[in-house]
């Protein structure tokens, strides 16, 4: 017997159209930016809007990424995800209040230290809460979407009420640390400091996530698990532990998003998670349930569109996102980057 000589694979050149097809979703973001420029026709306000759109999009991405990954990996839909946004915000803001001497100090380093500690506290609290949530709420109903939705909504109600028990029902107003107030003036363009920070954090988180998913073994396990969890287990990996880790990370990211959202709005309420959740859902559906890249693109689209539309007609901002979602679903019924399951 010889080495199967007739079986000699060749890679065909793809046509330009074929090669462009997977890039389409990614091209939407720059396209939308151009459309935004056409809408505003004013470089300085366009830049301001774009920056704030990116900041908002990246914050939504941070909050939504955990949810989409959890769905992709274990087919678990968590309607209680918004509760972690609220929890993160409340814990973070409480820490900022406790560190009043740091936030009021005129030193940039001390201010940022306070913000960093608030973020760490918020993420730690949500990670812990997420672990408990997974144990009590999510684990018993795995494999049944209907019960998952019901039970996680129940979890959302309870979590929201617990936040009210601990922090009271009133809105809490606060101001950002000194270093994050105001804007840099570059020429005639005002760049709000916090938005810049938010964009930086968002990019770092996305880059880190991309690195972990593309370059590490745990990332390989997660990506393979999204497609065929059974086979990953048959190779010897305990997918359940990976799933819990992803769930907890996702909750911690929601907490991070919550702290940033709170700093952005400078007010927190127990219901803020619900509002965030609507945007998260829109983003996750636009991107394709389970796809992290799709989630990133979807978040940027939503953030940018909301800001551009708000500039023209503020009342239509939220509705524009629904319109975007409908348009994308008509174009691609499974979202921008559909995740195909093996089974």
């Amino acid at each position, binding site marked *: *017997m010889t*080495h*199967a000589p*007739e*079986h*000699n*694979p060749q*890679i065909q050149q793809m046509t330009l159209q074929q090669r462009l097809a997977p890039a389409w979703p990614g091209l939407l973001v720059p396209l939308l930016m151009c459309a935004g420029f056409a809408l505003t026709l004013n470089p300085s306000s366009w830049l301001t809007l774009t920056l704030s759109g990116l900041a908002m999009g990246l914050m939504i991405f941070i909050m939504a990424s955990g949810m989409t990954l959890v769905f992709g990996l274990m087919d678990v839909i968590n309607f209680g995800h918004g509760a972690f946004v609220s929890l993160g915000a409340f814990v973070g803001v409480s820490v900022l209040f406790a560190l009043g001497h740091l936030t009021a100090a005129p030193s940039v380093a001390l201010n940022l230290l306070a913000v960093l500690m608030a973020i760490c506290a918020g993420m730690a609290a949500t990670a812990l809460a997420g672990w408990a949530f997974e144990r009590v709420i999510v684990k018993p109903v795995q494999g049944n979407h209907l019960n998952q939705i019901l039970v996680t909504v129940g979890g959302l109600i309870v979590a929201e009420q617990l936040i009210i028990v601990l922090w009271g029902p009133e809105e809490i107003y606060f101001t950002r640390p000194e270093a994050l107030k105001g804007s840099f003036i570059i020429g005639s363009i005002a760049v709000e400091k916090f938005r810049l920070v938010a964009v930086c954090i968002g990019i770092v988180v996305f880059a880190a996530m991309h690195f972990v998913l593309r370059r590490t*073994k745990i990332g*390989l*396990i997660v*990506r*393979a698990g*999204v*497609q*065929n969890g*059974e*086979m*990953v*287990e*048959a*190779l*010897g*990996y*305990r*997918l*359940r532990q990976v799933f819990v880790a992803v769930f907890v990370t996702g909750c911690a990211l929601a907490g991070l998003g919550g702290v940033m959202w709170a700093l952005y709005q400078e007010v927190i309420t127990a219901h803020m998670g619900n509002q965030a959740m609507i945007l998260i859902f829109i983003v996750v559906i636009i991107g394709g349930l389970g796809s992290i890249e799709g989630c990133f693109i979807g978040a940027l689209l939503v953030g940018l569109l909301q800001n551009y539309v708000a500039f023209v007609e503020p009342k239509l901002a939220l509705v524009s996102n629904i319109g975007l979602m409908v348009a994308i679903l008509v174009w691609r019924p499974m979202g921008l980057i559909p995740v*195909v399951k*093996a089974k």
Partner: protein
Amino acid sequence: MADQIDHLIEDAPILRLDAVHTDIRQYHILNGVDLVVPRGQVTMLLGRNGVGKTTTLRSIMGHWRIHRGSITFNGADISTQPTADIARAGIGYVPEDMGIFSDLTVEENMQLAAFSGPMSATRLGWIFATFPPLKTLWHTEAGHLSGGQKQMLSVARAMIEERELYIIDEPTKGLAPAIVATMVRALQDLKDQGASILMVEQNFAVAAALGDTAHVMVDGAVKWSGPMRALAEDLDLQRSLMGFSLQTAARDQSATKSS
């Protein structure tokens, strides 16, 4: 004395199933499967479509939970263990649907399969020599592979890690004759290295060429067990158990051998 005990352990089968019953939802699929896989041999699991061969393999891997009976691997009951722990105990698995991660490249598929760390260069060299297309397509997304290449990747994934037992579900399904030959050689190599193999095979010629022992399933239970050669020679037995005879299969076999 110690030698005797060693001898006994070596003689003990690597895997045995005793009266295994498996239900899939309301359907009773396995109806008391008794099966012994001797160490260092190729054991064939044969039978018509739908008699429960794949379900038996999936039950061993813990993908389906058995509700009665026991599955003993290396002397320990694995029937209640999670799938991951069963694999870690030393079982490599090639599922019927190949279980390729189509969004990952061939390289990433292999990296994932190398459970205990970086891939061993020797084993990788052996795999490339056996399945040259995998080397050519190393950085291609596995979803773009042809059916035969996917099957090679699936078997290679099991081979990259040294396991005591390989469970392989229909490695030649839908393959061109030339690739069947490549596959048979790969499995022969694996056997020569001393591994034990439990294999479901519909291609009787391949089964006859590779198998040492055979178990034939009928209606969710093993109806006949014995040496592969005895089954291959007894046409009436084949007809009564599987509804076909080697005469048709023999032509395939000679075709396979001559290629």
